[in-house]
């Protein structure tokens, strides 16, 4: 049986760690001893939290794992909607409550364990950073918020975590706050997320209004008890919630913040912007699967946005030269796959992909971090190459992760991606086609990354002739609240790295490579739980059966686990492998066989228009900046002018008029009779345009006089009429 106190400790321990380290961060200088204390607090709290999480999951599985375990700790917001006058509407309250079921267990393990591994990695990666303790404060705070998000038993507790991880993301992206691009990127992330949260919270209001509660269990029970009744409103609710998911999980049109978020230290990119936080939107949609299944329209929107994002981001990924940018667009694309899965009803496949993606993408990001670390802060792949010689462990683990994400069997990514594509094929031919193209691009850009980084010779000076990126937005000045970023050249996130010297790449310390190996192994074996019957697994797969209770209302199993014919299944698997191979082949021909990238250069020049379009990310940032930021800003400036000149002008006009009409009359009176008496009040008569000020101050004096006179009058009446 799950223990509620232990459950509460899982998020509270990192919160405590954040609090202690936060207080220490201000006071203590960065001595080796202090760093050790920081490590003990940060790693101790997350490690213990991970152990308790495992213990909780074991206890839950041991208890049969059929019904959700839920515990309310206290009434958080008594949102009494009750109306008094005769209308007895049951008032409701929002509890601070946690929920443990198969879905939250899965996320719990991913978050705590991948989170812990990345903490370990960061002790090596961040070792030379000035804000070491501050970094771990934020990282622990993030763990707390993320755990609230996945453990919350209602939309409100979830929303606390939801916005909380956004805050931590803001703080960590802007970790190098003295760099403008980092501060800009942090703000952009927060604002884009806020736009999403606007939709989310409206969705929650509508849930409150419709169901009278925000509790998952109650909402879904009501919805599945009366599917006809709620079908209409479910569309609106789901679309609003999905706006929130688009913000958090970087989907079109709100994805623009994620690539810029790479300004944060690499462990942050791995933890927040690949493995955990950005998958929160997928988690939320799967969590709300009962509502989504009520609305085919909303499902179609989710699937379409997911598929379009997947291919859109994947195409951008093939033309980026910054190693982290490639991974960032890859993440956006993979998240698109997850939403595609959810949208076609393959909710378990979505979560399965969340899991496998957490393994291989964390491994890729941390591997990239290791490369950046080893190359003295360099992020431009054109200035890498040949690193297999210098960093064999990093190279090996990254290769494994590349194979996994490209979708080669029998690694983890193959099973989850195949399940997504197979289900999509069942439901929607065109989206399937988009997914296949995106999958090809994925294999291509990943192996392009691998070959550019690890094969050939080390070329610190860059590649001659290979298309240089043009400086974007040169001479751009800062505008308030601009969502805009990117001053063109590649920014290293290692602001305080040991760069600039003539540098021989070196392998990273064991704290980093050890973590890489663990993640690489997980990327190999993580797919075991999802092996389809065709390839020797079961139907439904182990993972599907595990998540089944979360999907049960409304007959989830029929929705999801339709059995395809053997022939069809075999063909689908074969074509999945084929596109992965095709992507690899392209990368091999362009970037491995031809170390000078002459072919790639030729391609880029021949299709210069497309190349520039992709390299500049379809100019979406520019478009947003011009239309939305620029438009709102211009409107705000106009309003500000209106405020200062029209509204205040009217006010001053009324005053002037009054001064002219009344002031003149009272001025004489004021001048000769009142002045002496009320000098104490009217401090104002000195300096400046004496006459005009005199007029104004005259009013205050007059008013004081009226007030004083009134009091005298009242006193007089009082005395005279006293009985």
């Amino acid at each position, binding site marked *: 049986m799950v223990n509620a106190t232990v459950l509460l400790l899982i998020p509270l321990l990192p919160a405590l760690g954040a609090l202690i380290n936060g207080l220490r*961060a201000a006071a203590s200088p960065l001595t080796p001893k202090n760093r050790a204390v920081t490590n003990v607090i940060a790693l101790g709290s997350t490690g213990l939290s991970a152990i308790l999480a495992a213990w909780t999951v074991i206890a839950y599985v041991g208890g049969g794992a059929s019904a959700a375990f839920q515990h309310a700790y*206290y*009434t958080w*917001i*008594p*949102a*009494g*909607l009750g*109306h*008094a*006058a005769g*209308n007895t*509407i049951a*008032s409701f309250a929002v509890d601070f409550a946690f929920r443990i079921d198969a879905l939250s267990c899965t996320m719990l393990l991913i978050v705590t364990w991948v989170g812990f591994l990345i903490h370990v990695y960061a002790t090596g990666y961040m070792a030379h950073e000035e804000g070491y303790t501050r970094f771990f404060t934020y990282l622990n705070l993030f763990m707390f918020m993320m755990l609230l998000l996945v453990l919350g038993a209602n939309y*409100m507790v979830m*929303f*606390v975590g939801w*916005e909380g991880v956004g805050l931590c993301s*803001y703080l960590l992206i802007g970790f190098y*706050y*003295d*760099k*403008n691009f980092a*501060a800009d990127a942090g703000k952009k992330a927060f*604002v884009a997320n*806020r*736009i999403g949260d*606007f939709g989310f*919270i409206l969705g929650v*209001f509508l849930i*409150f*209004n*419709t*169901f009278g*509660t925000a509790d998952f269990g109650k909402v879904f029970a009501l919805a599945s008890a*009366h599917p006809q009744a*709620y079908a209409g*409103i479910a569309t609106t609710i789901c679309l609003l919630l999905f706006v929130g998911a688009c913000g958090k999980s970087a989907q079109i049109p709100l994805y623009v913040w994620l690539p810029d978020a790479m300004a944060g230290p690499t462990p942050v990119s791995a933890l927040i912007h690949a493995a955990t936080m950005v998958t929160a939107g997928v988690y939320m949609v799967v969590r709300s699967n009962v509502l989504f299944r009520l609305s085919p329209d909303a499902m179609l929107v989710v699937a379409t946005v997911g598929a379009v994002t997947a291919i859109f981001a994947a195409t951008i990924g093939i033309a980026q030269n910054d190693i982290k940018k490639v991974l960032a667009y890859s993440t956006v694309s993979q998240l698109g796959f997850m939403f595609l899965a959810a949208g076609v009803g393959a909710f378990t496949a979505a979560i399965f992909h969340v899991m496998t993606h957490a393994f291989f993408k964390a491994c890729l990001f941390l591997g990239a971090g290791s490369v950046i670390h080893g190359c003295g802060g360099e992020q431009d792949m054109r200035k890498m190459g040949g690193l297999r010689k210098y960093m064999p462990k990093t190279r090996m683990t990254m290769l494994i992760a590349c194979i996994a994400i490209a979708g080669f069997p029998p690694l983890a990514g193959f099973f989850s991606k195949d399940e997504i594509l197979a289900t999509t094929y069942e439901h929607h031919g065109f989206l399937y086609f988009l997914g296949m193209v995106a999958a090809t691009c994925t294999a291509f850009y990943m192996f392009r990354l691998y070959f550019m980084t690890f094969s050939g010779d080390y070329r610190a000076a860059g590649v001659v002739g290979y298309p240089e990126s043009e400086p974007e937005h040169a001479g751009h000045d800062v505008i*308030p*609240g601009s969502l805009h970023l990117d001053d063109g050249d590649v920014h290293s996130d290692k602001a305080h790295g040991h760069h600039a010297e003539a540098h021989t790449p070196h392998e990273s310390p064991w704290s980093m490579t050890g973590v890489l190996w663990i993640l690489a192994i997980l990327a190999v074996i993580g797919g075991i739980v999802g092996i389809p019957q065709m390839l020797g697994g079961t139907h439904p797969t182990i993972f599907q059966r595990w998540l089944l209770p979360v999907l049960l209302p409304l007959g989830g199993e029929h929705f999801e686990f339709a059995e395809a014919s053997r022939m069809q299944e075999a063909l689908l698997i074969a074509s999945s492998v084929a596109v992965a191979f095709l992507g690899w082949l392209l990368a091999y021909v362009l970037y491995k066989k031809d170390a000078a990238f002459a072919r790639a250069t030729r391609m880029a020049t021949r299709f210069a228009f497309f190349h520039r379009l992709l390299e500049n990310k379809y100019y979406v940032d520019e478009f947003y900046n011009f239309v939305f930021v620029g438009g709102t*800003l211009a409107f*705000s*400036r106009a*309003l*500000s002018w209106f*405020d200062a000149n029209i*509204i*205040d002008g009217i*006010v001053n006009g009324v005053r002037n008029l009054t001064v002219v009409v009344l002031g003149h009359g009272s001025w004489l009176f004021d001048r000769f009779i009142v002045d002496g008496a009320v000098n104490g*009040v009217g*401090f*104002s008569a000195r300096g400046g345009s004496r006459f005009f000020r005199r007029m*104004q101050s005259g009013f*205050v004096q007059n*008013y*004081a006089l009226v*007030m004083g006179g009134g009091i005298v009058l009242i006193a007089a*009446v009082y005395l005279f*009429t*006293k009985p």
Partner: protein
Amino acid sequence: MNYILSITLWLPVAAAVILLFFPKTAASAIKGFGLLASLATFVASLGILNGFHEGVAGLQLTESLAWIPQWGIRYALGVDGISLWLILLTTLLTPVVFLSSWNTIHKHPKEYVIAFLIMEAAMIGVFVASDLLLFYVFFELTLLPMYLVIGVWGGANRIYAAIKFFLFTIAGSLLMLLGIIYLAFAHFHDTGVLTFTITELYGTTLAPHAQVLLFFAFALAFAIKVPLFPLHTWLPDAHVEAPTGGSIILAGVMLKMGTYGFLRFVLPFFPDATAKYAGLLIALAVIGIVYGALVAWVQPDMKKLVAYSSVSHLGFCVLGIFALNQTSIEGSILQMVNHGLSTGALFLCVGVIYERRHTRLLADYGGLAKTMPVFATFFIIAMLSSVGLPGLNGFIGEFLILAGSFQTWPRATIVAATGVILAAIYLLWLIQRVFFGPITKEENKNVREIAWNEVVALVPLVVLMVWIGVRPNVFLRKMTPSVQQLLQIVHKTDAGKAMIAGVGRRVSGVGDQNRPHEAMLRPPTPDPRLPLSGGVR
């Protein structure tokens, strides 16, 4: 009889009187005494909290003495769930002001401390008076010390700002005075009893047209105080010129006298007119939310930015009040307190750097996080509270307001909710310009880190932000019965009944698992009463 209200009310006055006998030059003694007196007042106000009975709806801890019996004017005090937290907010913020200005006020320290003590008493008086005329006296009395604070200790253009502040607010309240007298006489006409006691006046029947006129007379006074768009232009000027302490009190407490006035007088005195014109006020509130936020975004001056953010935030309070349901009004009262804490802290923080750098222009800053990391942390927490981050206080208030108003005014609520996005934009912009990026100005390289007195002033505010965010129920449940009673009065009217019937139809049946009400099947139908169809977009 319990005299705790009188004690709290008169303690600062007594202290001010004693201060008169202090020598002008003993600055430290004067400030120390002022701080002590304000702390003693705070302790006394804790006595109010202690004596407050949670389940009671009406006024408690009442005191009543004849003041001018011929006219039925009484010295009548009382507290209920609506005023309780505002009193505590007042008594909390006054010592915060004294602490934060410990090292910044060199000119006339004695007068400064006296002005703030008198102001504190007057503000407490506003919240505890249960006689209309007594209320009016306190309401006007708050103006004089604030006028002096801005006019004497303010910035370069202080005279203009002080006078504008004074005249603008006076203009509104004079009409209200007429309204008060009319109301008392209407009651006299009905019953033959001349009284200004609020509870006795509640039942006064008014001719419809009279009710409308009185509604606007009162609403104008309070709308200026809040300030509601388009009556807000005195606020940025007053804030920019006011010294830090003045801004803290002005934004922290004085603006709430307007929203409090709506709740205490406008709603229960004129329920028909309220129900009839709620749409107008909601429209103005929603415009104010968006307008204030957008204008705040482009202000080059930090204080102006925070001042316009107040216009936006107070719009939420007014929206909550005129959405006329339990959730939104409780949220609105809580948000008054929240705004006092967060904007009080923001003005305090702006004061901290102004005092060191003597500029309020955002362009003169940048990179301060490097030189003042502890201060940056406080500023960011205050910002997050203001932005409405869940887990902190601002979120609870905004959530309750919007969740409540969404039931009655869904479209207006959607527009209002964009204010939450905009708040993030302008406040993050503020933070970024001040703290992030490289240090570009030589003067910013050696700015002194936050001092002990400033930390001590900020810590209680931060603690409360977290406390309210995590355990709002502690604060909310004391309001519930009073708000319920207030709504009973409002909803007794015909218009009010129609309003609840409309809401009830939409929400009833919720929680009934066996019988989905037919009304639940529809998305909230567009409300014919919504005035926003063309106005705000």
